[in-house]
């Protein structure tokens, strides 16, 4: 039980370190970094590597943005397995809708409640 917290912390932290190195050493903007990580996540799922990582690290693998690419690919692949090539198009958001819908909903709620502040 304890070990999942340690692996989550370490794996999650390491993915962030990779992102930090891309930003600091690779001089990428945050947007470029995140897009690259998402693409990496989806490629990893293509090789079937990301699901074992989730089993190993729990949220350490599902919270970083790489899991977004993984979930999209996973949905597409699962659908493709059932319905063939059409499934690639239709299955994409089957698994991953929660992140996007939560962000839209909470973003809209936030825009109703909060005002932007220029404090430091």
């Amino acid at each position, binding site marked *: 039980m304890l070990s999942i917290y340690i692996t989550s912390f370490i794996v999650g932290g390491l993915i962030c370190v990779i992102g930090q190195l891309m930003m600091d050493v690779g001089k990428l903007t*945050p947007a470029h970094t995140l897009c690259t990580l998402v693409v990496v996540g989806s490629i990893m799922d293509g090789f079937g590597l990301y699901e074992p990582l989730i089993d190993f690290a729990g949220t350490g693998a599902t919270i970083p943005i790489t899991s977004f690419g993984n979930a999209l690919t996973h949905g597409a692949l699962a659908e493709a397995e059932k319905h063939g090539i059409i499934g690639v198009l239709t299955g994409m958001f089957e698994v991953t809708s929660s992140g996007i819908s939560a962000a839209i909903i909470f973003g809209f709620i936030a825009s109703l409640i*909060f005002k*932007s*502040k*220029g*404090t*430091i």
Partner: protein
Amino acid sequence: MNKRGLLTFASKPVIASTGVTVGPLEMKKSPFSKYADKNYDDERCGLKTNEQGHAKMMEDACMIAMSKLDKTPADAEFVLMGDLVNEMTPSNFAASTIGVPYIGMFSACATSVSSLLMAALLTESGMAELVVAGSSSQHNSIERQFRYPLQYGSQKGATAQWTASAAGVATIIPYIEGAPIITCGTIGIVTDLGLTDPLNMGAAMAPAAADTFKRHLEGHGSTVEDYDLIMTGDLGKIGFELFKTLLDRWEFDVSSTFRDAGAEYYGKHPEFLAGASGSGCSASAYFSEVYDKLLSGVYKRVLLIATGSLMSPLSYQQGETIPCIAHAVEIQMK
């Protein structure tokens, strides 16, 4: 002698008064705020949008500057001002409220000096008895236009500067005694040395400032020792360091008399990283502390070099380099 871009004002136009307004954060953190005429408790000056607040700061600064001369907008012939937001809308709105014939000025953060020089020219030509010149910036509206939303979490490096919320305005009239005289100035040449990092604007602007500085001293035949103060606009800590290094290579004495408004703007608060930027930064520093010290006789002769980076979000996203400009104005107190 090459006289390109050099201006000399024989009729000695003077800065009769100034008006400086600063935002709430600047009031708390900036050493320049104690010279300011007005500050606001609210970053939007109690109005609905950031841009309205921005216009309000500008408008208040103009009214304060004129009221110090017991003048109303009806007495002013021209108002010259600018800012950094889309098509200078805050200045346009401020001008529409004031109702003085208006020319929008844009030299990015160098607008404080370029408007001052144009105002001096109008006065020199005899076409104006009272010209209002200035520039302003407001953190929220500019940050959002040039960078990210205010609440967006992005890590800023040591070179990043904080856009100041401030407006600085001066009124320029024909010569009278006891006011600082605008004696001469130099219009800058756009300098682009191929830097592309929009979060390191000080480094991009430093060569422009150095170039204008050199041209001013050579063109007007002065030396560093002639000045009590040489103050750049918003180079920030890193840009200022580069500026001094460049001058040092050209064998100017940079050991004293040099200051940078941006680097000093937020005092010793490390969270502001390289210092302040924005067209309001140089304007509010020049028209508050420097002007007061000219009036009180602490400074007799100062050289103000405001720098601006002439880029837009579009240009740097398209991978363009950052062209920069610097204008210099020399002010003397007899």
